[in-house]
Every structure is written in C-alpha cells, then in structure tokens.
C-alpha cells in the first residue's frame, strides 16, 4: 500500500461512494447456515462480491496426541483462497498472508467459543474463499461464527465483523476492494455485541488520533448490523419457514 492510487473518485460531492453506497452503508450481505453434508456445521456468506464457504468439524480427537491440551479444547482455523478467487490465478500453496489471517481469525473466535468444555479435543474451522472482493477476513469471520453455532459448539457470543476505513478524508463503513486499493485506511473489526468485546482489530493506513477513535466506533456499529444478519441466518435454518 506504499503508493495508494488517488485518481479514482471514491466519494462524490453528495457523499456517494464509487459503488453507489452511502458512507455508513454496508454492501449486500447474505448468510446461509448449513449446506454441507459432511461437515458438522457450515455456513455460506455472500458479502458484496465475496463468496465464502465455512465448514466446521469437532469437537474431535487430536493427532498427534501431544498437540492436544488436557485442560481445554483447542481451536484450529485455516483460511484458504481458491486459485480462481482473485484477479490473477493464485498459487495453490498457502501464502504467508493466508497463514497470518488464519491466526488472526482463530484468535478472534477463541473468546467466543467455550473451549474449556471440550478438553483434549479440537474444533476445526475450514474457511474457503471462492470469490474475493475486499474484506474477506471479516466476511470469513462472520460466517465462521455461524458455522460454529450450526455445529452446535457451545458459544458465549457470536463474533460479527466488518471493516471501517478512510477514503477522501472521510471515515466510512465496509471498505470494498477499490476503496482498499485507492483509499487511505482499512480497519477490519471483529466484535461480540453481547459481550461488548473487540476480538479482531487491524489497521493499515494513516489516521489521526480522532479519526482512529471514530473509525473503531464506526466499525463496532457496523458489526451490530452484521450480527442481526447472522442471527437471522440461524433463525431461518432452525426456526424458519424455509426448510434447508
């Protein structure tokens, strides 16, 4: 990002963004709980043009044994992009970026999952990015929470996630791909609305102290919107009219 491109009009005089959204308006979000036959739990999210599938297995035995913990269960997360999910074909081998995001998402989910109820076992979360469009880690984290709930894993809360950011000197909600490339800052936020805890936070880009404060606040508010959609997805599957 050393050298962001500023030629694109990211925000017009009416406060309308390059994809027609208002500054506090998220992209279209659709979450479906379930869907996979073999996984113990699963979810599918479309978040703007992001398309992400999450499968959960567990709690299950850990091999090799010495990787397990006698006091608590462990959470394992793999974030993975398909070769065809991005502009130029991605090499199938896991990149350093994917390994870091896997770790960040794992640590964002851990506060939500009651791992202490499953000593010696592991819960595996497999995230597959089918189509990427900026903000995959937030969309993935939101879907992973639903997939864990779908798998019946006891949870304290769900983690909802969305990015805030800065374009044209304005703090906005839900940074899309063009805004991430050409904008001034991108701040992915993961938040547990019931427990009022930020469990994922990253920032790339320059913010003043005041902007930083506003950016976190906008992100947290955005997470509350996502949270409602997550709950609806579970509702639709378990109590809804449309059978899945």
């Amino acid at each position, binding site marked *: 990002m050393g050298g962001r491109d500023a030629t694109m009009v990211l925000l017009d005089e009416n406060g309308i963004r390059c994809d027609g959204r208002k500054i506090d308006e998220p992209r279209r979000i659709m979450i479906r709980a379930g869907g996979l036959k*073999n996984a113990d739990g699963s979810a599918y999210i479309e978040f703007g043009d992001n398309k992400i599938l999450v499968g959960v297995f567990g709690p*299950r035995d850990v091999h090799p044994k010495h990787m397990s913990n006698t006091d608590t269960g462990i959470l394992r997360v793999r974030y993975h992009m*398909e*070769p*065809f999910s991005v502009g*130029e*074909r991605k090499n199938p081998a896991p990149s350093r970026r994917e390994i870091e995001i896997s770790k960040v998402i794992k640590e964002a989910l851990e506060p939500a999952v009651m791992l202490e109820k499953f000593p010696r076992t592991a819960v*595996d979360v497999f995230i597959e990015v089918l*189509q990427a469009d900026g903000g995959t880690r937030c969309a993935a984290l939101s879907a992973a929470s639903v997939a864990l709930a779908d798998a019946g894993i006891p949870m304290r809360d769900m983690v909802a996630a969305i990015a805030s950011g800065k374009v044209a000197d304005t703090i906005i909600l839900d940074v899309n791909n063009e805004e991430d490339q050409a904008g001034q800052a991108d701040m992915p936020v993961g938040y547990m609305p019931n427990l009022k805890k930020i469990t994922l936070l990253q920032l790339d880009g320059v913010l003043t102290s005041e902007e930083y404060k506003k950016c976190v606040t906008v992100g947290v508010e955005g997470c509350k919107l996502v949270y409602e959609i997550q709950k609806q997805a579970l509702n639709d599957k378990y109590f809804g009219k449309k059978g899945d």
Partner: protein
Amino acid sequence: MASKTVLDELKRTQILELLEQGKRIDGRAFDEVRELVIEANAIPKANGSARVRLGDTEVICGVKIQPDRPFPDTGDRGLFICTAELLPLSHPTVETGPPQPHVIELARVVDRGIRESHMIDVSELVIKKDKSVIGVFADNVVVDYDGNLFDACSYAATVALLTSKTPTWNWVDEKPALVEGDLTPLPVSTIPVSVTMAKIGNHIVVDPNGDEWASMSARVTITTDSDGNICALQKGGSDGFTLDEMVQCGETSIRVGKQIREKLKAAQEGVQ
C-alpha cells in the same frame, strides 16, 4: 476415505447382498448416474466456472485465462492445465498439506480426459509465437464428498470451460496488452465426458457413491468425445477386470456419456 472399520465391513456386506439381488443401495439401476445438478457461472469474476452436484458430491471449478510463457519446445501452443483439490471441509478425513497420491491421480486423470479429447484447440491460444501464449487453468475444488470425484470434477471443468469468456491480448512493446471488452468463447472442438464404473464383487456399477466407493475392489474411468470415441481411460483399485468386462465398460461409457453430454450442453446453453 481409506480407513476400513467394522461399520464399513457391514455396509460392504449389505451392498454386496443387494447387488446379488440386482439392486443398488440407493435404488439406482447398475448403469444409472445420480442426479446431476449444474450451476454454470457460479463464480462470476472467474473467466468461467461451474458448481456441480453429483448426488451428494459437490465440486466447484473456476477457470482463469491469462498470458503465460510457453514451454521451450511448444511456442506455438497455449497452455491447458486442469487441477483438483479436496478441500478439508469436504470430508472429516481430508488432511491439509501436500497433495496425496490419490489426489494427484484424480487431478491428472481429469486433466488427461479433457486434454486427450482435444476439447480445447491450444494452437489458437498464442499471443506471440515463442514469447507469449494464453494459459487456461481449470481448478477444481471438492466441497462435499460422496464418492466418484473423477466424474464430478470432469463435468465441472468441462462446463466451466464451455462457458468461459476469453479476453484478447495484443503484443505491444514486447508485452501482452489486454484489449478491453473483447471477449470470445474458448476454441472448443468436442465435449469430453468421463464415466466411472466400480467393480464390487462381480458386479459393475456406474457412478459409485461414497459407500460403493469404499466397497469396490477396482474401478475404471473412461472418457468419450462427442463422436462417441474413447479418448482416455484409467483403471484403478486393487483388483483386476476380465477382458470382457473391460470391453463392456467401454460400451457403457459411450452410452452413458451420451446422456451426460446432453446435460452439459444444456448447462452451457442456460447461460448464453
């Protein structure tokens, strides 16, 4: 998918007993393929794509088309590469890490079936001879496993290729330059169809599901082209076939392949 437990053994016995009575465990005829649901263009940002559900086996294929360097000796031809990967969410036994031999075989058999049919005319995929050619990458990912990945991946890749839109590149300043908006279909000459048959006891069944896959002693995958010719074959598994069985499998693959080909064409036409 390789481990054999007592439950597997019981299932295998049940499957065999039913076959002796002329029945399959899910009620299909011996040469009957499971329900095939195809969603073309499932990944709109890819150059081509398809989501295929064959029974409860589900595969997504995305095609990426981009300039590439030719191999030293074949500067007059583009590249075609087809891969396959079992995602870990597709089954509890799938492991991450370097691909295991059975996944390598899967990818290579799917690739060869399409390649040997000459479906894609790679001689038309040249930007500048010896310097730059067009590479076509068809990557399959398995998202749900219930047996017979060979055919599910082959159908997904074929539909993704049939519906692919190829950009145009000119050769400018010793580099390929994208011509905006100029999209054409891939140069396709035939539609290959792979048909996999499993041998369980002395019976041969088409499109084995996961339970049948775990119970079979041998298998054969035969790919036919639009002219009804056989263009690729791979035997697998720890048993053998008689000569007569092999000849019969060839005939079955032509007959069943014809039915499937109509479905692939319909999926292609659905997005046009």
